[in-house]
């Protein structure tokens, strides 16, 4: 087993593990008893989606997925801030 096969197999295993983590976050997002639980699950889901995209870019050996991961990071942070602000004040733009 060469080193290239080792890292390709490791990438496949890591993508499955991160996909399992995304499923767990989706479960908490759908079930969550309170609203901040759902916001936290959405934030964690965006972060794990970044990790999954970077792993997929390494697996295909292309740098295209970097832009998608950066956009997911920025939109995830913005949505978390806006949703928390809405829960806090019942108003976004004061």
């Amino acid at each position, binding site marked *: 087993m060469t080193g290239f096969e080792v890292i390709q197999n490791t990438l496949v295993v890591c993508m499955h593990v991160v996909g399992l983590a995304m499923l767990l976050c989706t479960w908490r997002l759908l079930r969550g008893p309170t609203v901040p639980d759902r916001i936290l*699950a959405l934030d964690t889901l965006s972060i794990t989606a970044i990790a999954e995209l970077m792993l997929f870019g390494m697996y295909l050996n292309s740098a295209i997925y970097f832009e998608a991961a950066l956009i997911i990071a920025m939109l995830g942070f913005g949505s978390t801030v806006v949703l*928390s*602000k809405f829960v806090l004040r019942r108003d976004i733009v004061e």
Partner: protein
Amino acid sequence: MITAIQIGLSIVLLFGCFFILVGALGLVKLSTFFKRLHAPTKASTLGVGCVLASSVAYHIFLGEDPQPRELLITVFLFITSPISAHLMAKAALSLLMETRPSLPGNERAEEEQLPPPEPVREQSLEGTDETFTANDTTR
């Protein structure tokens, strides 16, 4: 040499994915919201940090396009994850304040069918009023 780099990158990747899975498990298994808030911060710092660092090393050593652009995402996540965690904790606290717990000692008074304890501030105000009037009459 390249084989050693590939095996080292595999170990770093497995470490990061383990922490991402631990963060998601903590998000599911822990009991209250503030305990749940504690778990995914480990996933966002350690797990995604390890994955992005190994991605930088992969594209530098093994790919054709050696530019450390993934460090942008790492820096962005490290800056923004405490801010979002702080805002979520503030939102949960504001929801918690709506259901305010009863005053201490109230449940026992209800069991013994006593009248609820009078607020302290009104008593002190009345006392000060009486002393003022008493002083006025003596003068």
